[in-house]
C-alpha cells in the first residue's frame, strides 16, 4: 500500500491517491507512515523536475495533492509525532515593490518538503523586515525573490542593509525569479542565483552541508 501511495502521489493521480489515503487512515495505519511516504513521493517529484520530466504545473499540482493529503492526515496525528526534525532555518521573501508570489510559494514548498524550516515573509517585503527576520530567526540562509526589474535595486538595498546591520558575513543569500540572473546576483552582491525551486534546495543543501 505504501509503495502504491508513493507512486500515486509522484504520478499525480489525485482521485486514487485520496482514496488510498482514506483507506490507510480507516485501517488505522500509523499516520506518521503516510507522512514519510509524502516525503518519498516529493523526492521523486523533485527528481523528475530536476531531470526535465516535470515542470511548474507538476510542482504546483503535487503541492495541491500534498495539501489535500495533509488535511486528511492531520486530525489523526498525535501531537508528538507532528514535528519532524528539520535541517535548518531558511528565510525567504519577495523584495519591496514586487508582489509576485508564485515562485516564492513554490520555493517555500520545495524547501519545506526537503526538510527545511522555512519562514516566508510574503511579498513586497521592506528592507527592515528582512533585517529583523534575520535577527529574530538567526537563519544562516536568505532567499530573495523578485519577478520584475525594480527587484534589482530592492535586492541590492536589502543586501546592503544586512551589511550595515553587521549580519551579512553570517548569511548566505540566494536570489531568483523572472528577470534575475547571475548579472543581477553580482549587482545585488548576493551569493548565488538559482534558476528554479530545485536550485534553491540544492543551494540550501550545499550551505547546510547536506549530502
Amino acid at each position, binding site marked *: 500500500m505504501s509503495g502504491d501511495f508513493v507512486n500515486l502521489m509522484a504520478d*499525480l493521480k*489525485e482521485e486514487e491517491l485520496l482514496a488510498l489515503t482514506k483507506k490507510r487512515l480507516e485501517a488505522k495505519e500509523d499516520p506518521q507512515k503516510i507522512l514519510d511516504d509524502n516525503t518519498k513521493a516529493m523526492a521523486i517529484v523533485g527528481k523528475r523536475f530536476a531531470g526535465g*520530466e*516535470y*515542470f*511548474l*504545473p507538476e510542482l*504546483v*499540482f503535487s503541492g*495541491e495533492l500534498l495539501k489535500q493529503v495533509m488535511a486528511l492526515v492531520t486530525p489523526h496525528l498525535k501531537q508528538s509525532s507532528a514535528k519532524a526534525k528539520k535541517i535548518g532555518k531558511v528565510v525567504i521573501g519577495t523584495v*519591496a*515593490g*514586487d*508582489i*509576485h508570489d*508564485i515562485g516564492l510559494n513554490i520555493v517555500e514548498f520545495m524547501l519545506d518538503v526537503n526538510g527545511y524550516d522555512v519562514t516566508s515573509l510574503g511579498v*513586497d517585503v*521592506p528592507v527592515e523586515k528582512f533585517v529583523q527576520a534575520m535577527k529574530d530567526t538567526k537563519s544562516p540562509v536568505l532567499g530573495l525573490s523578485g519577478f*520584475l*526589474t*525594480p527587484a*534589482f*535595486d530592492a535586492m541590492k538595498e536589502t543586501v546592503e542593509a544586512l551589511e550595515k546591520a553587521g549580519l551579512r558575513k553570517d548569511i548566505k543569500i540566494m536570489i531568483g525569479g*523572472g*528577470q*534575475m*540572473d547571475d*548579472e*543581477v546576483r*553580482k*549587482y545585488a552582491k548576493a551569493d548565488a542565483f538559482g*534558476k*528554479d525551486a530545485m536550485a534553491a534546495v540544492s543551494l540550501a543543501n550545499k550551505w547546510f552541508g547536506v549530502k
Partner: protein
Amino acid sequence: MGKQWPEMTWQERREERFKKWLAPPGVKFPGVAIEKKYKERATRMIKAFKMEIPDRVPIHLAANSFVAYNAGYTLKDLLYDYSKIKPSWIKFLEEFDQDSADAPGFFAARVYEILDYKVNKWPGHGLPDSATLHNFIEKEYMNADEYDVFVKDPFDFGLRYFTPRTWGAFEPLADIPSFSSYQGLPERLMMMCQDPRFQKLFKAIWKASQENVKHQTVMGECAKESLDRGFPPLMGGIMLAPFDTVADMLRGTHGSVMDMYRQPDKLLDTLEIIAERSQESAVGMANMSRSPVVFVPMHKGADAFMSVKQFEKFYWPTFRKLLMGVINEGCVPMMVIDGSYNEARLKIISELPRSSVVWTMEKTDMALAKKILGNSACIAGNVTAAQLYTQTPEAIKKYVRYLIDTCAPGGGYILALGSGIDKCNPANLQAVVEAGKEYGVYK
C-alpha cells in the same frame, strides 16, 4: 478597380495595411524632411517583417517607466500628474533615435482609483512610492466551476462576473439578471437608474470619464509628438495567447494548473472560444489604428513554465489558430516571449507562413533562434533588462554587435530589448542605439 478585401490573399491585405502605415490618412507632417524620415523608418520595419534586406537593422526600444526616470521624475509622478508626461516623452523621443515610437504607456492612476480597479498595484496605491513598475495582482477572477458560464456567453460572463470582480465600482453588476434577452433593455436600464447602488456607479463612471479625458488628451498629444518627429507608431492592437488569457487573467497560474489536470477538456474548449474572440478584438483594434502590428506579450508557454508536451496540448494549437486568423486579416503579430524558448518550442512555432509574424526574445539563445526561425520569421531582441541595469555602455555595445553579427545576416532582424525597462543608466540605452547604427548597416 483592384481586388476587394474578401478576394485578397493575406499578403495583399497586409500590403494594404502597410500602405496605410507608410502614409497615415489624416496625418500632416511638419515638413518634407520629417515625412521622409517617417517613411524611412516604417520601410525599415516593414522590410524586416518581410525578411527582406533594409538599409540597416531597425531599432525598437520598449521603454516603459524609463521615460519617467530619464526625465528626472518617478513613475508615481507620471501616473498622478499628467502634465509631466508630455515633457518626459519629448525628452525621450529627442534623445533616443529609434525606428518607431508609440505614445507612452502610463495609465491614469486616478481613473483606476475612482473606479476601484483591483487587478493592479502601483506606487501610491498598494506599492511603495519608490516602486518603478506597477504590479499585476494574479487571482482566480473566474472560478473553477464557471467555464460553462464563460463558454455559454462570454459577454454575460464579462458583464456580471469578471467586471464586478475586477472593478470595485462595478460590483452592483454582480447582482443583476442576465442581459441576454433581445428585448426589454430600455426598461432594464431605467430600473437600474432608479437603484441607488447604480446611481453611485453611474456617478463614478461620469467622474472617471472626466479624469480620463484629461489623460487621453495628453496621450493624444504625445502620439502627435511622435509623428511630428517622424516616428511611426508600432502597436496597432494587443492580444494574448488564449492560454495566457486563462492563466494570467481568468484563472491565474494556480487555477489554470488545477484545470490542466482536473478539467482539461473544459479548458481546451474555452481556449477555442477565446481564440475566436481575441481575433475579432485584435483586428478591430488594428482597424482603428495606424499600425498593422498586433502586440502579443507571451507568458506561460515558456521553458520555465510548462513541458513541450503541455505546450503542444494547451498553448500552441489555439494560439496558432488565433495567429492565423490575425495574419489572414493582414495584421502583423509581434510577440514578446518572456523567459526563454528551447529548440523544441522554436521548431513548433517556426511552422507559420513565412515572414508572417515577429518573435521578440527575452532570454532565448539568439543564435539558436536565428538557426531555427531564420527561414521562417523575423526575430527581435534581446538586450536584457539585467544587462541594461548592471553593465557598462561598452559591454552593451559589444553585446549588440554580437546580436547583429548573429541575427542580421540575410535580413529579418530587429534590434530590440528583451523586456520593458525602468531605471537603467540612460547611457546604456543610448549604447543600444549607437551600436545598432554603427554595426547594423547592410552593405
